[in-house]
């Protein structure tokens, strides 16, 4: 099984060779799990100068020995992983493997039973800069299906963490305009969100994250129910945003797409089976270990 990694515009092969943020001796970085030896040379590719300039150099997310269960049912066990700024991480695993739980733990929506989570260097429960995280939940697409809300109103929600209780300023409205422009749905701004197609809806949610000027974008299976062409455009957009220095964490059920697009892959099935570069994931036996035998990565032509 081999994977052809496309060196396309969104796949940043060039600016990844000289990583200043961390190196192979970084103890937190994907060596401390036992299922798969992460043997990728040069896995320190994911550094992003523009992101580190502004807010120091702590990783976007750091998880140490995180365990979480719903009642007696463990959902995530002893996971340690670090996501550097500017990284594009694909989070994969079979159905019910705890991907969403892991993401919610990273974002501080859930609190771990054991272990420690940091967001941009702060313990997650003390992290207060809500505007720095853009989140698109699995349910975002059907949330508020009967609720009358326009695209513009949804995108404006991205400014609410900035505004607090004050009135929205001109700056807020400009940020919304820019975000709508960037994802190319300015002409749809006064449409009801639930009248949009799946692809347009996803763009609206991305715009919400952009309006909030988030530097971490976390998405839970955003392309479910989106047609192939819109999905292609969507990944193009994600690539562009990643190039601008935005850290991306993406849960995706389609392994082909995610291994093509993401820099790094974390594969979990309750425990972490693999965390390393996309190519090392394809070469490893993590896929089989996590998903069971007869699994393979299906690539899409594009």
């Amino acid at each position, binding site marked *: 099984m081999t994977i052809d990694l496309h060196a396309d515009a969104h796949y940043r092969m060039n600016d990844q060779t000289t990583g200043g943020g961390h190196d192979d001796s970084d103890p937190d970085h994907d060596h401390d799990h036992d299922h798969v030896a992460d043997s990728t040379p040069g896995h320190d590719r994911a550094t992003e100068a523009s992101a580190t300039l502004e807010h120091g150099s702590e990783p976007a997310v750091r998880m140490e020995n995180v365990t979480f269960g719903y009642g007696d049912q463990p959902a995530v066990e002893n996971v340690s992983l670090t996501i550097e700024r500017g990284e594009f991480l694909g989070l994969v695993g079979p159905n019910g493997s705890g991907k969403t739980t892991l993401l919610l733990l990273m974002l501080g929506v859930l609190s771990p039973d054991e272990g420690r989570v940091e967001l941009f260097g702060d313990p997650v429960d003390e992290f207060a800069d*809500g505007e720095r995280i853009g*989140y698109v939940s699995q349910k975002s697409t059907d949330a*508020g299906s009967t609720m009358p809300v326009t695209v513009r*109103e*949804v995108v404006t*929600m991205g400014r609410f*963490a900035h*505004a607090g209780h004050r009135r929205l300023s001109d700056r807020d409205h400009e940020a919304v305009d820019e975000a709508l422009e960037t994802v190319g749905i300015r002409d749809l701004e006064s449409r009801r969100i639930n009248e949009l197609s799946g692809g347009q809806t996803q763009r609206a949610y991305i715009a919400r994250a952009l309006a909030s000027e988030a530097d971490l974008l976390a998405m839970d299976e955003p392309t479910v129910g989106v047609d192939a062409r819109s999905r292609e455009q969507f990944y193009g957009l994600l690539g562009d945003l990643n190039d601008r220095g935005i850290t991306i964490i993406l849960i995706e059920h389609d392994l082909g797409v995610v291994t093509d697009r993401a820099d790094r892959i974390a594969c979990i099935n309750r425990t972490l089976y693999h965390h390393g570069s996309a190519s090392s994931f394809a070469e490893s036996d993590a896929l089989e270990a996590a998903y069971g035998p007869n699994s393979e990565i299906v690539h899409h032509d594009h």
Partner: protein
Amino acid sequence: MKYDTRLRLERLGVFAVGVLAVVMLAFLAARGLAEYSSAADLVATRLVDGGCALGSVAGTRLLCFNFVWYSVATGVLVGIVGPLIGSYVVHREMALIGETLAHTAFAGVAFGIFFGSATNWGVSVLLAALVTGIIGAFGVQYLSSRTAAHGDVPIAIVLTGSFAIGTIVISLGRGFGGVSIDAYLFGQMAAVTQSGAQLMGVVSVVVIALVALNYKQFLFITFDEQAARVARLNVSAYNTLLILLTAVVVVGAMQILGIILVTAMLVVPVAAASAVADSFREAQYLSIIVGEVSVLVGVTAAFLYGLAPGGSIVVVAIAIYLVAVAVADRDSAVAAGA
């Protein structure tokens, strides 16, 4: 009609409703201060005289009576704050919770009657209803956070349980009080007292101020609670505030609508508005307009024909809802055909 034009018209409508509400609040405040200030007394008297003169031109002497003003003022305010809170309650799928709060408030009404031996919507009954309504709000909040997503079985148990306690207390009281509970169950025009109307005035000012202050936060948690959590909004605090405001509005609105029908004022105008509106703001404007029209038409009919005001208000609101749904269907059919 173009969205901008429509929004401008709706703003005009809301403004008119606002003017009406300010007049009513001024009347209630002036009546409250009349004891201490002759100027306030004069203001109240002038307002009634003015209403009386206007009403006489339209062929009714109803507005010449103070008690009518209390009912109308309460109705006008209910027509605003009901849909205002309702637009969050409905889209959070908390309609059943509103109903439950009305029924827990009924237990309070029953206790208020039992211990206060009141015969109308006296302030003691309303305060008792407010207390049990708020206790109910916390109880429901606790239950829905403990059980799987809006689990409706525990809520149904609280709803029927508190109503059961209310009926027991009422039947005990009836043994020696002979109180009629019809006014409480179905609402009664002439039963709105001065203090009851004034309580509604205070409630309305507080609710409108808090919704205005927290508009963004309420909208965010209503639309996408998980994302609001990630954006570090204190979701559970806003949820608690919202449910408390719901309890307060429900208790104030019970005077006109009665316990059984009070939820309709939170739900029906919002449903009508949501069928035709594009934006949340537009829906909120429209629902207030629908609520106000329903109240004014319903209250007038109730006075003229001696009907239960709650019933006539709700029937008018539902009629508007049906029209709105028909209009929305036609619009989408036109859009699909185009």
